[in-house]
């Protein structure tokens, strides 16, 4: 399999601290990859090593089939968008975008055409005389993007490209960035600690934790088949259960049955009609409701455990103290250190009865 970027057994220490622990992954040409992980998990370090701004202690990095460990950043054919953009503050938007082309001593006319084209692409044609300080966060982000793209890199690296932008603009920029990258077809890796962002933007997600790669795959794979407890916990909204065998349909022998339940695994109904399968359901009491815009998050207590579920705004509203039915469809089990999805067993029986 030919990869555009490949990391093989990469290790990196900062002093005694292991920032990258035997990292292996490959990215195919034209893919948009999200490097997702909690703060301090070593995402930026990986990105900087690919760019050549940091040197791995051991391991090999390949870009377009070539081992690049000993090649300077400028010769790796990459574009880098920095977390705080790192725009040249004393240069105008135009000069910023043109920088990489000027360094390459491109023809003046070619530069002019390319910069104009990119300014158009980022929708800032009218602002090319401005300095970075005179732009909004979202505009700066786009300039940084255009600047990185100007020399037509084979690989685009973006470090938390949306971190410094407010929520609304961020949403717009995300889809803009995804569409633009797909349109240009440039292989890209972006770093984020926001799972919504990764799921929405990336073709594939690589999950990092404590300097290791926990799992790589499409958002759907990672969501539906988390390979490690960390991933199961990190992706989606999770409620930890120390022993899931107490719930109906999940009874098992033995000890040590920790797991997690996500809100979308639970149906909360006010009566038997609403829940459809009352025999497989638990009884609970509403502890609180939180309006979430498109739905209501309901917190319920079942057998002394607090669970969370979502409820459509179309259904009759619940309030604190209401007695409800809670149907747990499935649970992620961490039993014996392995992750597995367990379905509600009594649900099947109830089907049979009906």
């Amino acid at each position, binding site marked *: 399999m030919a990869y555009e970027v490949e990391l093989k057994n990469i290790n990196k220490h900062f002093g005694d601290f292991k920032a990258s622990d035997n990292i292996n992954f490959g990215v195919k040409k034209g893919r948009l990859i999200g490097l997702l992980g909690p703060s301090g998990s070593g995402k930026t370090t990986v990105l900087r090593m690919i*760019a*050549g*701004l940091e040197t791995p202690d051991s391991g090999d990095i390949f870009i377009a089939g070539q081992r690049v460990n000993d090649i*300077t*950043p*400028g*010769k*790796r054919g*990459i*574009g*880098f968008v*920095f977390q*705080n953009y*790192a*725009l*040249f*503050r*004393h240069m105008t938007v135009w000069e910023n975008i043109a*920088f*990489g082309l000027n*360094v*390459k001593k491109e023809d003046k006319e070619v530069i002019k055409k390319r910069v104009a084209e990119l300014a158009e692409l980022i929708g800032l044609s009218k602002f090319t005389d401005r*300095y*970075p*300080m*005179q732009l909004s966060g979202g505009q700066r982000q786009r300039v940084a993007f255009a*600047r*990185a793209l100007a*020399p037509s890199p084979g690989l685009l690296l973006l470090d938390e490209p949306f971190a410094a932008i407010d929520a609304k603009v961020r949403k717009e920029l995300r889809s803009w960035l995804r569409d633009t990258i797909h349109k240009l077809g440039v292989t890209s890796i972006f770093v984020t600690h926001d799972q919504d962002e990764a799921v929405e933007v990336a073709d594939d997600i690589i999950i990092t934790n404590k300097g290791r790669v926990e799992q790589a795959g499409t958002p759907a794979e990672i969501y539906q088949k988390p390979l490690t407890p960390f991933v199961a916990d990190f992706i989606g909204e999770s409620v930890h259960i120390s022993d899931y065998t107490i719930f109906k349909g999940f009874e098992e022998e033995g000890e040590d049955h920790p797991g997690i339940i996500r809100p979308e695994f639970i149906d909360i109904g006010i009566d038997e009609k609403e829940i459809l399968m009352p025999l497989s359901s638990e009884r609970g009491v509403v502890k609180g409701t939180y309006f979430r815009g498109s739905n209501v998050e309901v917190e319920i207590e079942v057998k002394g455990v607090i669970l969370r579920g979502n409820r459509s705004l179309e259904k009759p509203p619940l309030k604190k103290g209401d007695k409800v039915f809670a149907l747990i469809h499935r649970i992620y089990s961490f039993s014996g250190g392995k992750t597995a999805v367990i379905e509600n067993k009594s649900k099947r029986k109830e089907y049979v009865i009906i």
Partner: protein
Amino acid sequence: MSEKTVKYFLIFVGALFLFTMLILPLTLVAFEAFAKGYDAYIAAISEPFSQKALYLTIEATIIAVVLNTAFGLASAWLLTKYDFSGKTVLGSLIDLPFAISPVVAGLFFIMLFGRLSPFYPILSEYEIAVVFAVPGIILATIFVTFPFITRELVPIMETQGRAEEEAAATMGASGFTIFRKVTLPNIKWGLLYGIILCAARAMGEFGAVSVVSGHIRGKTNTLPLHIEILYNEYNFTASFAVASILVFLAIIILVLRNAVEWRAERSGKYGL
């Protein structure tokens, strides 16, 4: 006492202090300089030994500023753009000239290049005179003024970080291009400010230069040394007249300094 009273009281104290410590002495310098009339003043400052002292001061200042600019840029770059062990030690060493008395610095050069020095036989064989000669004066001036530019640049470069340089590097810019196109424009006002401080200090340096100079009139006397000699000879008018040259140079520096500060503030809107 109300807030206002405190304010005016402090302004009054400040003004009084400035007046007695600064304005009054400066006026007296001018007064003394012209005590024997305009002609005597002109005669005093155009006298060959004074002229020679002025040239030597300017020479030492220019060389010190040029070399310290190069050194200051290099060391500030090293201290802020690289990580290495012994970084803090280097930082403290650069501050050393601020900490030790200039006279001690002067003695240090005497030990290094004078008769007691282990290098003295070599130096005398090639007839290289360092102490009691112009090179010693220049060395002493450089030594005393070398922290200024580094100290001015390090905080600026530290807050600016390395990201812009790294961005330029990923686009294939060479080290020199990065310095010229990215780093230098970002630090230019701080650098100019440091240069001005360095020049001001270099012109006025007395202690270290006094030790290494040997006070040879017309040869190794800088303006401050010449002023002292004239004064010690009870030639007050000449002494103050020459002093007025230094005051005049100081005023030029002050104006430049304010101009630079003003420009730097204005360019602040571009994020400097």
